[in-house]
């Protein structure tokens, strides 16, 4: 005679330990990359650490709903995205309106640094920190797609999935986001002609 209640207790216990092991195998290894994504949109290391920890805690809480290994990183990025959005709300950070520049924007079409050759030079001369500061200062919608594409190297399809957008929207936001980023970096370059040996330059967000 099978004792059903003992049996289901055992099965339950197995699932519990199993899920901790699964979490440790499937989710924990992603914490380094998650931190990278968090850090790139945080003003400080402490905030990035908070975002990362909060993301993993939420991931643990919701782990039972997840059954697909391949999509784990995308799933974690979705959570991180919500954590960051919540963080921004908490910080009362003003949601920037996303300005839409055309390719004929004055800076882009008239500035000497905007032509492909000089632009490439300007990019080379700016420090990683300067470029990252400009990325962080992008409006949310633009920053997200730029991070997921140019840092995380995800396909438009994956980004669309993570951000709940149509792939066409990912493409237009990325086009506009990079355009705005280019415009701001061109301004930085023109404000600081000696940017190459000036490491403490901060980007002043264009209002």
């Amino acid at each position, binding site marked *: 005679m099978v004792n059903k209640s003992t049996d289901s207790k055992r099965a339950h216990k197995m*699932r519990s330990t199993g*899920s901790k092991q699964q979490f440790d195998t499937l989710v924990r290894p992603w914490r380094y990359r998650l931190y990278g994504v968090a850090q790139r949109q945080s003003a400080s290391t402490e905030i990035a650490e908070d975002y990362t920890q909060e993301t993993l805690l939420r991931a643990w809480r919701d782990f039972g709903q997840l059954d697909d290994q391949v999509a784990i990183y995308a799933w974690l990025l979705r959570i991180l995205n919500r954590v960051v959005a919540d963080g921004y709300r908490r910080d009362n950070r003003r949601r920037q309106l996303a300005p839409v520049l055309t390719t004929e924007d004055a800076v*882009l079409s008239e500035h000497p640094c905007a032509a492909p050759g000089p632009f490439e030079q300007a990019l080379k001369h700016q420090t990683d920190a300067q470029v990252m500061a400009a990325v962080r200062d992008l409006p949310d919608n633009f920053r997200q797609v730029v991070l997921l594409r140019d840092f995380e190297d995800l396909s438009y399809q994956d980004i669309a999935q993570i951000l709940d957008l149509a792939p066409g929207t990912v493409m237009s936001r*990325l086009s506009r986001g990079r355009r705005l980023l280019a415009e701001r970096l061109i301004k930085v370059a023109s404000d600081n002609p000696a940017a190459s040996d000036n490491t403490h330059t901060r980007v002043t967000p264009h209002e």
Partner: protein
Amino acid sequence: MSDKPSITPSSESHQWSDLHHQIQDWLAGYADGELDEHHITLVEAHLAGCEACRHDAERQRMLSERLQEIPAPRLSPAFAKRLDDTLASVQTSDRRPVGQKPLEGLKHWLTRLSPSAVIGGGGWAVAMVLAAMLLVPSLTPEDPNQMAVASQIPMVNDVLADYQRVVGNDLRTPSDDADLSPPMQWANGRVLARWTTRVGGEPAEAYAVRLGNSLIVQYQISERVFFRNPDVRQAVARAGDFRTRDNELEVIGLPMRASGLLVVAPSGNVPPIDKSAMSAS
């Protein structure tokens, strides 16, 4: 400025201007190689005559390359340690009963999964549903050929129709206090959901179980319904169970104490049936 289009008749110039604006939203896709053939052709035709967009496409590409050069920030060892400790403490204190969690419908899982998971071959939930869909592409109770065997036994018809509805994503959310343990348990099986349905005119408990890539549904039905059909009675008396199948689905009927169990599985994917456990339960 320097590269403004030459003055053309107004309709043509409108078209050019529309395209000029439309294409600006595609330039990232062009630079990233994410456009299809058709759009590449459109973009390239435009770029040939528009310096502003041509430069923008170049900047998109350069910017992307520049950003990719930036090394990923490193997590400090101190924080890594703190993070591990925090997780460990949450994991031990919070004995979250994974298996008892109310589960959402298949539709929800599907929308949550990335399409690349399907293509990548690792998405079991998608694979399972696709497999089930492929296995039951046109199984409808109205189809007299496919249902030839089953149509003689109403309870079999009912469970096949119910199974099909589950495959069609209409998986009901179980109530919070539902006990998700199905009558028959398999080592690698995972209970997805439980719901109540009607089989043979009487209430029945259904349990969806994922096993490998198969969706298997167990229906616990009343003894009366189970033994109503003489073919079933005969088969059970002779072999201990009742089996019927068509090209796509297989149904196994098992007597239980005071009830009957119908297991519906894709043909060829029927899990081992432990009859000793069944009769004992």
